[in-house]
């Protein structure tokens, strides 16, 4: 009952607003002039391709007889979606990135949080230097980062492997059990600094008085960090988690690059790689259906997480 009231007020204000604008000819023109530059590309480059992909996912290929017959596409209902759900490779790729995400996302965000908190303490010197250094990997394109790491993983040419060998360790970064985590390491290296920066900027906006008050109450730096700072920046942590969930489901560049040097990454390793493999075999309709399913899963997971946590965080 209580939350209906403010909502009603909001509705009233907006109607009022609309009424005020009505009849103002030049104003409508202004709105159009300001809004068109956004909506035109939005429709052209966002809605149309998404609509096209959805449309393609409902088509199937049929063929007139003969060895090479003539192919044509026609409406096939949910046929392509049925195939996606029956595809074992699709589910194993989903399972694989599920495992990837469950491990990689918490590790990365925890490291990012710790780094952000350390940057925020008055104890640390050379803050600007550490901030920019930690953020630097983000400036490296994912593919380049993966190529760089693939050199470090590759047993024939890696100084890292050579170095570990000299102390008696024989790591196999590209082995069947390790390669997923080698890919996770590349993602972590790329994105930790970025996530740290989002959390750090949230920390920066906390008023200093709060800390002073806490200090007067006898709180230690440790308590301030975990009892005050972390709860206050919870929304940014949630935001970075959502970004990470989306990023995990779209994982492509790192495994695709590592695949060139490791035979333990199949062409259908992640859902996006599966979609690409299917599209490159010219089965565009099936690839479109896979893409739509990935998008829906991403949507459900990220918004589900947001709803779940924002309630708990009291937002």
């Amino acid at each position, binding site marked *: 009952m209580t939350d209906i009231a403010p*909502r009603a007020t909001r509705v009233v204000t907006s109607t009022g607003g609309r009424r005020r604008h009505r009849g103002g000819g030049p104003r409508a023109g202004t709105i159009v002039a300001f809004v068109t530059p956004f909506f035109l590309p939005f429709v052209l480059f966002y809605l149309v391709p998404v*609509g096209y992909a*959805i*449309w393609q996912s*409902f*088509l*199937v*290929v*049929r*063929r*007139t*007889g*003969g*060895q*090479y*017959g*003539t*192919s*044509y*596409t*026609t*409406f096939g209902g949910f046929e392509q979606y049925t*195939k996606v759900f029956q595809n074992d490779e699709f589910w194993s790729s989903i399972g694989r990135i599920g495992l990837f995400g469950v491990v990689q996302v918490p590790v990365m965000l925890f490291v990012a949080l710790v780094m952000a908190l350390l940057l925020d303490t008055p104890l640390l010197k050379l803050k600007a230097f550490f901030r920019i250094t930690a953020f630097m990997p983000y400036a490296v394109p994912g593919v380049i980062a993966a190529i760089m790491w693939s050199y470090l993983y*590759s*047993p*024939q*040419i890696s100084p890292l492997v050579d170095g570990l060998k000299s102390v008696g360790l024989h790591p196999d970064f*590209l082995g*069947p059990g390790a390669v997923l985590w080698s890919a996770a390491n590349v993602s972590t290296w790329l994105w930790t600094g970025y996530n740290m920066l989002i959390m750090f900027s949230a920390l920066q906006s906390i008023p200093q008085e709060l800390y002073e008050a806490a200090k007067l109450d006898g709180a230690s730096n440790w308590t301030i960090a975990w009892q005050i700072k972390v709860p206050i920046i919870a929304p940014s942590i949630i935001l970075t988690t959502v970004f990470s969930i989306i990023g995990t489901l779209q994982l492509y560049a790192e495994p695709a690059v590592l*695949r*060139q*040097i490791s*035979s*333990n990454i*199949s*062409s*259908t390793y992640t859902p996006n790689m599966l979609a690409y*493999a*299917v599209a*490159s*075999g*010219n*089965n565009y309709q*099936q690839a479109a259906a896979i893409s739509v399913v990935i998008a829906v899963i991403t949507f459900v997971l990220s918004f589900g997480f947001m709803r779940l946590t924002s309630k708990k965080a009291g937002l």
Partner: protein
Amino acid sequence: MSNTVTRISLAAVAAAASVAVLAGCSSPAPSSDASASSCEPAKGKVTLQYWNTVPGMDKVVALWNKKNPDIQVQMKNISNDQYGTIGNALKAGKAPELAQVGYDELPFLRTQNAFVDASACSAATAAKSKFVPWTWSQSSFGGTGVFAFPQDTGPMALYVRSDIFKKHGLDIPKTWDDYAADARKLHKDDPGLSITFFDPNNAEAFNGLLWQNSAEMYKYSGDKWHVSVASDQSKQVADYWQKMIDAKLVRTDLAHGSTQMYTAYQKNQIASYVGAAWGYSMFRDNLPDQAGKWSIVPMPTWGSSAASGDWGGSTVAFMKGNKHLYESVKFNSWLNTDPEALALENKLGGLYPAATAGSELPALSQGVPYYNNEKIFDVFADSSKNIDTNFSWGPTQKTVNLSLQDAMAKATAGSGTLSDALSAAQATALKSMKDQAIPATAGK
């Protein structure tokens, strides 16, 4: 809460509505293009589009343009994404007159109605006698038309590090059994040394090995494709390499053409290479220090009779919508049979010509300095003559190759065998053809 629900259901309704609207404008009208087009010379000047991936081809085209002011050719290099670019252009109805297409992709594009039949031009059908027979039968689909002219081939041979062979007292292997014996001897002498490597991510190379053993993977008869990817001949090849892998006689950790592969050769860890004609420049250019150490000999055989396989090679195809067939045939013939053009393509692009006249090129009948001045192209010419002409590629080859690679990788990692990989590829072949509505059944 109710607000959200309304919004979501509205979005769903909107999505459903747009699907319905789009469904209304479905265009299932199949366009038939496979019939032979007319072959009239154009009145006046003509400009042709020609897409390819061959380095130095711009110079070859420039030579043609200089000689033929009335038939000008505009070239575009599509080596970044060859089949993606061609596929998109076809979808948009903007294909060039001529495009480079690999033999293994010809049936696939043929099922996508990508080509136009040039057999209306008498010059096109007459060109048959100028090409190595198997290349012609692949690009004319067993004589159902003329859809492309062969350009280059990849007859296979064995590259041997003669110094390592000599040092360990190995004979040049005549059969695959000899080769395995050499491999064992080498491994016993020096566990750090392997006879060769097996790249599980390279279906093309493996297909070349299958081809050598007369593994006919696809056959068309009775209105159906008969798929026998996992035939006995294929399995014989798979079992052989599986044994080599299990005994750790071959490396499986090197991707073909990668820095890692060259590093392994550089460090003298590998004593031979099973490769194609175009590979001669790879070693020459990437391992200049090993000049004089390499020899090229015929590929080991399964029986006593000579047999070889092909790995790679391309055609120049007549693409859908071609309105200047007469001129296209003229240029395409020149490009792929004229000695001057062939010599230039060999020199600049490393192409090993598919035209029979190619073997008479001066550059291909001389000794090659890097290979101890051996006449290596004689080996490839013999190899080319021994390639099984019955071999044909499937209409969903790319998908089958990916599946084969995934399963071969599993086999080299210790789960399953290469023979299982063939069975997986067989299943994928049937499934992917069903997805494309191509009638197919398991053969043999």
